[in-house]
């Protein structure tokens, strides 16, 4: 989540679901929390019981909307205009300008007062583009966005948590020297004044015109968040992938971070930004990543195109001098010790040269193209169903059909395993099973209750679960599969002295096995993740105990502390309380629940108010104390000022809560860390019914990554062939691409068939009755499903024209009990330049009554 990382220091939810109960106002936007996070939503309901105002901003009236005080229906893809208008409203309001709380929080805790390079040019100056843009490469040189007086000081980058390796190295030039400030916030080059100018045209009138939200409704929201922020009150934002899945998704999220910093809501109970993660342990799968460009603990993956040739070069390039990331060598060396054991020695750079290095974008969407083009020959699909869940699923299935081999591990025979005889292409006769050369292996997977393991949930909380029953038949856990596969591969490469053979041979892969199934002993795995001293194998206490001399090994430094000295797995803890519940599970980093919690106290270290007390300075004991684990050096005085040459955490002042940033401040102006600009800027989705009303010459993000090819065609701006906006989403009753739910009778019967939601107004235009078959199509593909005609969708007036929006859950496919047209047949491959995420939350389509030609017409199933 680079949107949060670039402004706050870590790309993860800043707060917990439990803390929402302490909120005075909860804004849910880009998320359908009641439907997709029903258990966490109980804390929103608790906040309501305590009198909080609840706001849901979403194109559809969903089960979340039904529970709130205000539902704002906006055009899908216009989120940043509304957020930008909130920023503009807040900073120009009497309350914000007159309440000393806001001035104090913003001048001390953010970079509002920091002077930016006077040559910097904003989108207001350059008609929708920032300075530093290379039109040919479609890339920015962030050198143009530096702090004043710091241009060209190239050494290392600081926002590791937010960036992948290639981005890190593109954005070299960390803010090293002490910046210049104007604490009156009047200097035209200070971050605050730049922001003020940048958002000046994001007005209530613009919101009405471009988002379709009446001004009065917008003002009600703006007043609610302003009234409920301050010394004694906090507002929280909760978002999910309906912010992420846009070509400007990262900037939508980063705009929320900017707004919450301005409102003084970060690091405080009932405040913050809750990034609702879409799967049970998706946070865990970025912490210990399944991503191609990260090593565990957000360490950048070595990149063959960068100066990453040796460990020394890699660290020289990537290690910041100021802030918490200064200790990065400890984490990298300890990781190499965990990977390569005795092979990793100080003399050979801890076997750094054995690490694979990336050279291009190998994220999910380019992988689909590589499969289709024959550049990727084999694929493991574990817990994923790309035949249904992948963007441009038609292209994706063609890619699957072009592999040499495909291993699918799942609990049911999902579409990705069955496409060769059951896909729409085969049913239509476009593809014949005998022509598909892919050899497919379907491996039965154990269910959650048939294996032990952990979930790292949406709030960075690791919770352990035990095995209830043995898996049946040949079903096995992921841990079993990966461990035994690894052992067999090692056996296969024994004695192989090629670089690949050396890589495989050097990996330590010696977990003891337990039980009848011979699963690897997960206690040993947890100890490795936690880190241990090599000499005696004892777990380290925390990340600070890790060393860069090879004396410690650690699988993921941010999880250090998950195991106690006597080997207890803290993820098993189940002792909750009314405050931070530090005795429940383990939350990274260091069991902190609310991150950046130094900001819950004023610059002098006193709680902002009794009601919003969380962490404070105990003068007598000379330490930070409170309800949570302080996200700050324990004994650092509030009035501490670093010397100009101080390094690491010593370079962070006593009133600077964002310890991962070089200057310890929340970045209203992101001088590095984002590929598409230092400030959030509205650009229309790649497919949009209107051009950009804010920057008429620049409809799309100048850095959006597109894949122009015949099997991934895009619609024009305001394309008359595709007049409707479509958004995709999930339902409570099903789970992602359906592999765990559509085959389960008790869940399938609750939503037994796919459907398309549309307003009565649009249905009337096409003569569609509730329950009719409807076909939706784009230049990528088509899908037919049943019409659910409902007033929960509504036409909006955008720039004087009526815009219809339709909605389609993306769970459904051709397998299982609950079937339906595949929504991702319609979506396109397109990437947000920061997160490389696609844009399934807003694109365009057309629709008609009836089924796809060749499908049985007639009654609904």
């Amino acid at each position, binding site marked *: 989540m680079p949107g949060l990382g670039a402004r706050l220091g870590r790309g993860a939810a800043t707060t917990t679901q439990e803390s929402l109960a302490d909120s005075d106002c909860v804004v849910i936007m880009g998320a359908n929390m009641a439907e997709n996070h029903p258990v966490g939503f109980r804390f929103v309901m608790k906040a309501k019981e305590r009198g909080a105002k609840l706001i849901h901003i979403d194109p559809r009236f969903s089960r979340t909307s039904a529970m709130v005080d205000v539902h704002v229906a906006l055009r899908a893809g216009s989120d940043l205009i509304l957020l930008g208008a909130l920023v503009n409203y807040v900073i120009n309001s009497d309350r914000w300008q007159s309440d000393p709380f806001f001035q104090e929080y913003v001048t001390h805790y953010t970079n509002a007062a920091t002077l930016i390079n006077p040559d910097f040019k904003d989108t207001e100056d350059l008609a929708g583009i920032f300075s530093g843009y290379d039109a040919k490469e479609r890339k920015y040189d962030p050198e143009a966005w530096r702090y004043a007086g710091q241009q060209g000081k190239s050494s290392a980058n600081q926002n590791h948590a937010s960036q992948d390796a290639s981005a890190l190295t593109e954005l070299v030039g960390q803010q090293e020297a002490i910046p210049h400030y104007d604490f009156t916030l009047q200097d035209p080059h200070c971050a605050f004044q730049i922001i003020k100018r940048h958002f000046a045209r994001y007005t209530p009138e613009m919101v009405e015109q471009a988002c379709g939200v009446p001004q009065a409704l917008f003002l009600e929201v703006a007043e609610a968040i302003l009234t409920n922020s301050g010394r004694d009150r906090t507002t929280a934002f909760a978002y999910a992938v309906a912010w992420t899945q846009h070509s400007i998704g990262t900037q939508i999220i980063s705009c929320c971070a900017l707004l919450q910093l301005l409102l003084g809501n970060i690091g405080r109970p009932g405040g913050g930004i809750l990034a609702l993660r879409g799967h049970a342990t998706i946070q865990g799968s970025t912490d210990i990543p399944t991503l191609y460009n990260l090593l565990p603990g957000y360490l950048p993956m070595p990149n063959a195109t960068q100066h990453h040739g040796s460990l020394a070069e890699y660290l020289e390039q990537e290690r910041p001098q100021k802030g918490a990331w200064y200790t990065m060598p400890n984490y990298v060396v300890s990781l190499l010790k965990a990977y390569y054991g005795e092979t990793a020695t100080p003399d050979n750079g801890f076997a750094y040269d054995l690490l694979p290095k990336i050279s291009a974008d190998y994220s999910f969407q380019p992988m689909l193209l590589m499969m289709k083009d024959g550049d990727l020959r084999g694929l493991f699909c574990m817990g994923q169903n790309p035949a249904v869940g992948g963007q441009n699923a038609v292209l994706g299935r063609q890619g699957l059909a072009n592999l040499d081999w495909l291993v699918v591990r799942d609990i049911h025979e999902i579409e990705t395993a069955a496409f060769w005889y059951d896909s729409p292409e085969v049913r239509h006769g476009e593809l014949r099973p005998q022509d598909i050369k892919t050899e497919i292996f379907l491996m039965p997977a154990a269910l959650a209750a048939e294996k032990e393991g952990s979930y790292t949930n949406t709030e960075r909380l690791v919770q352990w679960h035990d095995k209830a029953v043995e898996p049946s038949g040949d079903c096995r856990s992921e841990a079993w599969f990966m461990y035994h596969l690894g052992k067999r591969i090692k056996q296969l490469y024994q004695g192989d002295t090629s670089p690949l053979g050396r890589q495989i041979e050097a990996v330590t892969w010696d977990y003891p096995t337990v039980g009848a199934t011979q699963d690897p002993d997960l206690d040993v795995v947890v100890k490795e993740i936690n880190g241990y001293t090599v000499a005696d194998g004892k777990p380290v206490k925390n990340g600070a105990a890790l060393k860069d001399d090879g004396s410690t090994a650690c699988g993921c430094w941010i999880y250090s502390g998950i195991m106690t000295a006597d080997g207890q797995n803290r993820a098993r803890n189940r002792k909750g309380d009314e405050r931070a519940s530090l005795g429940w599970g383990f939350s990274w980093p260091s069991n902190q629940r609310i991150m950046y919690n130094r900001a819950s106290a004023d610059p002098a270290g006193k709680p902002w108010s009794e009601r919003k007390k969380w962490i404070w300075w105990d003068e007598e004991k000379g330490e930070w104390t409170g309800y949570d684990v302080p996200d700050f050096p324990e004994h650092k005085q509030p009035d501490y000022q670093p010397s100009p040459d101080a390094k690491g955490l010593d370079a962070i002042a006593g009133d600077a809560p964002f310890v991962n940033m070089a200057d310890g401040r929340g970045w209203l102006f992101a001088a590095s860390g984002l590929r598409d600009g230092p400030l959030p800027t509205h650009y229309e989705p790649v497919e949009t019914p209107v051009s950009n009303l804010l920057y008429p010459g620049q409809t799309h993000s100048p850095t959006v990554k597109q894949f122009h090819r015949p099997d991934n065609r895009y619609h024009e701006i305001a394309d008359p062939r595709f007049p409707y906006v479509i958004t995709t989403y999930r339902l409570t009753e099903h789970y992602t691409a359906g592999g765990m739910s559509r085959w389960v009778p*008790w869940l399938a019967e609750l939503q037994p068939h796919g459907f398309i939601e549309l307003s009565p107004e649009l249905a009337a235009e096409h003569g569609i009755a509730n329950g009719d078959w409807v076909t939706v199509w784009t230049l990528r593909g088509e899908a037919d499903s049943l019409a659910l005609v409902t007033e929960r969708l509504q036409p909006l007036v955008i720039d004087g024209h009526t815009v219809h929006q339709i909605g389609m859950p993306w769970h459904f496919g051709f397998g299982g009990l609950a079937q339906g047209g595949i929504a991702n047949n319609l979506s396109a491959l397109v990437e947000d330049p920061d997160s490389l995420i696609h844009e399934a939350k807003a694109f365009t389509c057309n629709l008609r009554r009836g089924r796809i030609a060749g499908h049985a017409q007639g009654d609904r199933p």
Partner: protein
Amino acid sequence: MMSATIPLIDKELVGQHGARPGAMGFLTDTTLCIGCKACEVACKQWNQLPMDNFGFTGNSYDNTGDLAAATWRHVAFVEQIGDGSGQRAATMAPFQSNWLMMSDVCKHCVNAGCLEACPTGAIIRTEFDTVVIQQDICNGCGYCLPACPYGVPALSSTDHKAHKCTLCYDRMDSGLEPACAKACPTDSIQFGPVTALMEHAQTRVADLQSRGVANAYLYGDRAIGGTGGIDGNNAFFILTAEPEVYNLPAYPELPQDKVGRAFLTTFGAALALGVAAVVALRG
């Protein structure tokens, strides 16, 4: 607001309930329901009830339809989004608004029509004051079906016997709360002693009304829902629209209480016809 639309039988009866000592029940507070259907799934899983009535209804998100032999919790969805002119709700009353969701269940009546109609003694009142159909005794005669004013018991097409919610008798017997209440993430379904729940419900209704939910009311006391000789429901509800909106009868009555009236009506009709015939003949 509700008092205007729902003429109560007698205001004195609000909150009145014939609960016996030790009675256990449900309070289903619709103002907290998020329509997740976890209650439906937890019920089916615990009670090992099969999938039934599979199909897309097009009726909002309700593909369950009704309580049935293999469906003992049913979440109803009622959309009231627009005002009839195309204008959609934006600023709303607190708690559940404009898209009503209600988890329906057997009411476990204080005086249960089904129990009184059962000729075999299969339907019993338990030590928890709940109403349970003993499957080994039920002969599938179906007399309980029309005897229930809420249409709860249903005959299974598999074993041809009558089935309905047991309030998880087996779980209660082991000191556990019923599966649906356990699974409910927002405590919309609460389980406990009826007297305590009834007290809580009245406090909650007063609280809701004071917070702008003027139409909140309790369904299942002697004033509404638990009427007509039923003397109250051990599973009662907090609702915010007329009972009929949720497909519940406003003033249910025990069928047996209709016997006297029905007899008199029939007798009266016969008498009137007789008199008419005599008059006609004499004419």
